[in-house]
């Protein structure tokens, strides 16, 4: 018995073929994604790399996709630090691209913005259970009247759920009511909303995006980031290690952490909405192609230069960035450009880790100094896994990860000395696609794809 696992990415369609019993990888293949015509074309091209006999006996087909923009969500809550944040976490945890997060009552201008963002669905939260309900009801009415025509997952105050769905029914394609993302103040509950989002994705979004055939023929199961996340969850569970993964792409850098992130030092107090054990952040301004210009702006030329063994000429960095921003598949042409490419990748990893991880703030109290922790303490993470072409094709990926981890600021809670791994065959998404149905095969693929650094 074999399984065919497919990832329709925005640039490449990647296929992995695996034996289920005894479990093991047969091979991988890839071809350019054909989103403009028919996604199956690119898949056929990729599959042509396998021999006919190899493709015999496929019993399981499963796919994930980030083509056609991925799963695009706008998150709406009440207070920015509470339900708006909880809604955002839930959407990210469902593998979505969160296009924007809004708080309080939506204005006509914000409704206009949402229209312009063209989301696939809205995640509507607001109010603890039994708490505030005017705002979420107002927002439901505004969404109903707006003619946005986007499905809605309602995950706010349960007391207002019936009335909100009444307002929305018939005015939007679909409403699913899920349990509140923040049932009580400072209690985060993302799982029901994540499930509702996935349900909508499978039932409505694939239809809207013309992915029904893909769903029928190759078992489109989830957005790619969710598959990668499930791969990481399996890694954390089966190896019993706390894990951080960094996935560098052309447009974004994703970080996933699988760790409770509780304080690891004495005298540290945790405040605010708790962090999810499985946390994902997506940085839309940190990427190696489409977002390269934004990356240069975010980290600044000076900090990039400090990663280079030579002093770049005036405009050299900007020129290179302009060239790679223009197209998805340009490559460095010479040694200097390779070094710039390397520095850009290190900057992506470092900046994304700093934003994902928590930090400490000093607080002076009459009885002495204390620290208040915001976000997750990942200083003791056991493993850091690098994912993505830039690392997989680099000559010294582990050195790049190591350099990215060198952060002087002791108040930043990024991993300090994790063991380093590389997803060398780009199989984490495939692992995640298999993990619930064939966990043992999924574990075997993990073992094959994760390559440890030598030291």
């Amino acid at each position: 018995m074999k399984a065919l696992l497919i990832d329709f990415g925005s640039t490449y369609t990647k296929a992995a073929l695996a034996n289920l019993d005894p479990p093991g990888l047969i091979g991988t293949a890839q071809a350019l994604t054909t989103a403009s015509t028919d996604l199956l074309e690119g898949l056929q091209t990729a599959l042509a790399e396998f021999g006919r006999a190899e493709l015999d006996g496929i019993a399981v087909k499963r796919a994930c996709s980030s083509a056609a923009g991925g799963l695009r969500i706008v998150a709406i809550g009440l207070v920015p630090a509470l339900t708006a944040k909880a809604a955002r976490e839930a959407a990210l945890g469902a593998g979505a691209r969160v296009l924007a997060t809004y708080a309080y009552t939506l204005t006509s201008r914000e409704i206009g913005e949402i229209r312009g963002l063209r989301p696939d669905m809205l995640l509507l939260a607001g109010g603890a259970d039994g708490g505030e309900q005017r705002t979420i009801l107002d927002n439901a009415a505004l969404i109903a009247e707006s003619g946005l025509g986007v499905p809605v997952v309602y995950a706010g105050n349960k007391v207002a759920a019936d009335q909100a769905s009444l307002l929305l029914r018939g005015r939007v394609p679909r409403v699913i009511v899920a349990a509140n993302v923040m049932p009580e103040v400072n209690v985060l509950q993302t799982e029901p909303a994540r499930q509702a989002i996935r349900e909508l994705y499978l039932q409505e979004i694939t239809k809207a995006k013309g992915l029904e055939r893909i769903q029928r023929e190759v078992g489109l199961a989830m957005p790619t980031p969710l598959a990668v996340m499930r791969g990481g969850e399996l890694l954390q569970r089966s190896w019993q290690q706390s894990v951080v993964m960094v996935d560098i792409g052309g447009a974004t850098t994703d970080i996933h952490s699988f760790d409770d992130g509780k304080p690891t030092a004495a005298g540290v107090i945790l405040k605010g909405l708790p962090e999810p054990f499985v946390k994902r952040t997506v940085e839309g301004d940190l990427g190696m192609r489409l977002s390269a210009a934004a990356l240069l702006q975010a980290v600044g030329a000076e900090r990039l230069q400090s990663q280079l063994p030579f002093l770049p000429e005036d405009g050299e960095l900007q020129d290179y960035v302009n060239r790679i921003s223009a197209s998805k598949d340009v490559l460095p042409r010479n040694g200097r450009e390779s070094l710039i490419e390397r520095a850009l990748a290190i900057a992506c990893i470092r900046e994304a880790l700093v934003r994902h991880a928590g930090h400490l703030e000093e607080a002076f109290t009459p009885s002495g100094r204390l620290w208040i922790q915001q976000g997750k303490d990942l200083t003791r993470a056991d493993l850091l896994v690098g994912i993505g072409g830039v690392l997989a094709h680099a000559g010294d990926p582990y050195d790049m990860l190591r350099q990215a981890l060198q952060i002087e600021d002791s108040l930043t809670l990024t991993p300090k000395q994790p063991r380093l791994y590389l997803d060398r065959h780009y199989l984490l998404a495939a692992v995640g696609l298999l993990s619930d149905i064939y966990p043992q095969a999924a574990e075997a693929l993990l073992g094959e794809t994760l390559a440890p650094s030598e030291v």
Partner: protein
Amino acid sequence: MPRTTTIVLGVIGADVHAVGNKILEMTFSDAGFKVVNLGVMVSQEEFINAAVETDAAAILVSSLYGHGEMDCRGLREKCRESGIGKILLYAGGNLVVGKRTFSQVEAMYREMGFDRVYPPGVMPDVAIADLRKDLGL
């Protein structure tokens, strides 16, 4: 059926005195209120965020360590900015510092926008009765 009344409770500023806070949580819960207890070291913003999300009827601020005046200033103004300007604000704990009398301290907190101010060692029952009165329960 009338909705249970929610109150937000916490110890403000850099204050870590946790014992009284637990007692207040218990007594107000027993009296039938839904208590959102934010614990110790609570900032003004946290009090307000929690009150907004829960549509709370009152915020009960404790300060035990002697810096209450500094920590409490501006809370009423921030409530107004956040759309809950009319919420009841109570303060208690060790609000008297130095040579001032309780009535001086009370006047000062009332000027800061607090509806009720309690001296050290007040019994929670007193505040529960006041809260019922203020809310017309």
